[in-house]
């Protein structure tokens, strides 16, 4: 144990001396004749890395063998391109508690009932997320203190209706045709929501005494 420490200390000293050009021929020979070239190499590269970082050269030298950018671009290449060129900002996001699987899919706005997809035999790509409760019970309001108000837990009543049980689909995980039609469905759902929001806002500006400000919430007017 102790011998090992001494040995590696000695190794470091030798490498350091060599790097500084202060190693004599004897030192160099001793270094080269070491049995464990692995640890010599490790110390050698670590010291160089340390020096390069200190001299701010690591961009060009030290991480050359770790081609991160190549790996990242490879990963990007393999990723499905976004199928939906969204003109409007992605401004509807799934509500909290609902977002277990949906958070994976930035484009997903509304969940879809299982029937349509199962017909196409794509059930394996389905991500079941929300819990199912039989009775669609609603969130119960409990009296709460005035300050630091706590609203009923969102998601307490997030089950889909129609006896199907709630299943959330994550668009990017769905292959080919299904994904496309999912996108279409999402687009449609968002377009409908935007239109509803516009109509809602029209009435809100008349009712809530805050001038045109409610219109700032409407991100898109693309209703045709």
């Amino acid at each position, binding site marked *: 144990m102790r011998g090992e420490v001494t040995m590696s200390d000695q190794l470091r000293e030798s490498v350091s001396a060599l790097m500084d050009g202060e190693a004599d021929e004897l030192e160099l020979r001793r270094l080269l004749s070491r049995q464990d070239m692995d640890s010599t190499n490790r110390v050698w590269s670590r010291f160089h890395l340390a020096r390069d970082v200190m001299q701010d050269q690591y961009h060009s030298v030290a991480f050359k063998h770790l081609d991160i950018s190549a790996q990242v671009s490879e990963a990007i290449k393999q990723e499905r391109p976004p199928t939906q060129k969204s003109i409007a*900002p992605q*401004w*509807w*996001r*799934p*509500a*909290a508690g609902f977002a277990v699987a949906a958070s994976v899919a930035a484009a997903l706005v*509304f969940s*879809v*009932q299982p029937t*349509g997809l199962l017909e196409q035999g794509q059930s394996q790509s389905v991500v079941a997320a929300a819990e199912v409760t039989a009775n*669609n019970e*609603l*969130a119960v*309001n409990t009296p*709460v203190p*005035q300050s*630091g*108000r*706590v*609203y*009923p*837990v*969102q998601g*307490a*009543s*997030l089950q889909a*209706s*129609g006896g199907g049980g709630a299943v959330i689909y994550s668009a990017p995980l769905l292959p080919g045709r299904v994904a496309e*039609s999912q996108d*279409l*469905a999402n687009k*449609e*759902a968002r377009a*409908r*929501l935007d*239109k*509803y*929001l*516009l*109509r809602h806002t*029209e*009435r*809100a*500006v*008349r*009712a*809530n*005494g*805050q*001038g*045109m*400000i*409610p*219109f*700032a*919430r409407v991100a*898109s*007017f693309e*209703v045709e």
Partner: protein
Amino acid sequence: MTKSYFFIPAFGCQSGRTWRCLLALVIYFVCSLTSAEADIDASSEPAVLLERMSTSFHTMDYQGSFTLQQEGSVESFRVAHAVIDGKEYERLEYMDGDRREIIRRGDKLNCFNVGHRPVKFSQFQQNLKLGELVRTGIDSFYQFSVENGDRIAGRQTLTLSVSPKDTHRYGYKLSLDTETGLLLRTELIGDRDKVLERFQFVDITFNPTVSLAYFQADIQPDSRPGGTTRLDADSELIPAWTVGWLPAGYAEVELGEGDTANDMLSFTDGLSVFSVFLEPEDKSVSGRDVGEGNAQRGATAAVSKTVMLSGHAHRVTVVGEIPLPTAQQIAHSVTLSADG
């Protein structure tokens, strides 16, 4: 004597001039009492403040920029409002992303978006007086407190804190310009006092010189024939329907002239507004059921679900600045109306 007052011009007899002066004074006082109200301060009644807030948006001439912050995002806007020859003009421009603007001339309200047909709304009418609502019971659902506020957009403000007494509405922190009563900042406060949305003026000019020409759309919308798009979808397929449950204090929004949509109901408690939409399920273009789900942005919640009404599937969507569970509860309660 009185005759001379009526018919002899300013350089008439001495007493005629006195009468004129008196009359002018009386008119001045009446005017100052009715329209140009005094500054508001921390001792002002909440009802007075709310009324000032809602009227100042319609009576003041102003031009400025504001931001809307919703959780992670901030967007900027430019707004101008003027009363010219007794008619209100308003223009709201979206400064980020695609070019969009909303222009109101009197009771005509239109949205413009590059490459799209302008969207025309039903006639615009301000038809709810907040102050009246306060007197008729808004304070059974909200608790109000007034204190001196921050300096916002270079103006001194007064803060009106509005906290809900139940969980069916959000809280508000309204910052009003002490001189004009105009709303300079609104914070919508949700669960655990979290600010869901913040609207705030960055700079504002009162009584700017804005001409009528300013209230023309800069944007060239779609030039294809077809005119404007109307949003209302009055459908014969929609049965007579209603909501079976409403949170306390909400009443139906009075509709503007020409607003005859039967697929939409809107409710307000004087501050929060939400709307319920109903449409036959089979309208889906892709033939795919996209009717279930919840979505939220800032303070705006949207809940959509499918209900069976007279044997047909319908999609109910609730959109509004209300807590999501409340929106869900409303969506669940949609039924055929008794007389339908």
